[in-house]
């Protein structure tokens, strides 16, 4: 690693803008994290309104097939370097929606996740912990999820297409119960 990238990584870790994708119930832990009680701006992290200007994508919980599509759009719009935080057990293994017909398991099959925060829902302390950890990883040049995405794009794309671009029913046993005639 050259000195230049070391310096760049050092500064990158100190000012990260975060886009939070709040479809999960855990999003309710973000207002206290952002505001005076826990105040994440201490770590140089501040909410950002658009994906193109954001560095961190925080996914707060379950993703339905519909929202997964939007998350992928959002992620691909972000400029590298970019990092993804998976927040809550729903992003890890589906959480309480493990047998749902509409909620994905494991987020990192579709986009690379740098850090998972376990819990249902994680406390603001856990979120701050993950920010500090992410900052360390960025400054040490370890958080390279976005490079992984580019290198393994076929694999990610195949997983995404499996869910989003279905052309035939998933289960074999389909009854023609609904249509008349």
């Amino acid at each position: 690693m050259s000195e230049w990238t070391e310096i760049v990584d050092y500064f990158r870790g100190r000012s990260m803008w975060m886009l939070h994708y709040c479809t999960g119930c855990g999003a309710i832990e973000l207002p206290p994290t952002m505001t005076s009680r826990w105040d994440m701006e201490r770590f140089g992290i501040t909410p950002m309104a658009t994906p193109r200007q954001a560095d961190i994508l925080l996914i707060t919980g379950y993703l339905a097939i519909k929202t997964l599509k939007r998350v992928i759009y959002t992620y691909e719009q972000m400029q590298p370097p970019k990092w993804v935080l998976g927040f809550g057990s729903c992003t890890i293994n589906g959480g309480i929606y493990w047998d749902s017909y509409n909620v994905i398991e494991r987020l990192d099959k579709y986009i690379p996740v740098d850090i998972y925060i376990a819990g249902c829902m994680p406390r603001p302390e856990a979120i701050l912990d993950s920010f500090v950890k992410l900052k360390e990883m960025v400054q040490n040049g370890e958080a390279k999820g976005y490079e992984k995405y580019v290198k393994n794009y076929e694999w990610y794309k195949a997983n995404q297409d499996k869910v989003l671009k279905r052309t035939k029913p998933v289960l074999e046993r389909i009854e023609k119960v609904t249509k008349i005639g």
Partner: protein
Amino acid sequence: MADILDEIRAMDLKASWLNDWEFEVIVPKERIGSVLDYLKSRTFKGFMGLSCVDWIDEGKFELVYILQSYDLSLEAIVKTKIPRHRPVIESMNAIWKLCEVYEREMHEFFGIEFVGNPNLRPFFLENWLDTPPLRKDFDTLAFSEELFEFKEDETHGINPPERIE
């Protein structure tokens, strides 16, 4: 207040109080339109919602229309059963335009055909090709295992403690 129930019973329908502000009416499928129309004319102007119950053992879907009367401060719950296999019922969008949205949802999640509803396009689900998911014979776990590759013993290489004290 009590006479509204007597009037309904006089129409040869089963009706009963659930508590002091709400009552239910059981209606055969053919009369649902006229009964809802009647209730609307008797101040039950607010259409609160339409839901569906899957009575799989009976082979029936039960449609539940919830109406409200602001003048009488009462809620009416109108229930009707239709066969589960190839379910068809007439659309109520002529009585309440709002019904169209609820019927669209019931169409998507239970596969009920609403005759006269022009707008039964897909609603919440993305690219759905299977059996409508809220029917009780739809195996959500098998679906999740197949599509999202859910594995019960997935631990990501981390072994949690046996029990968290």
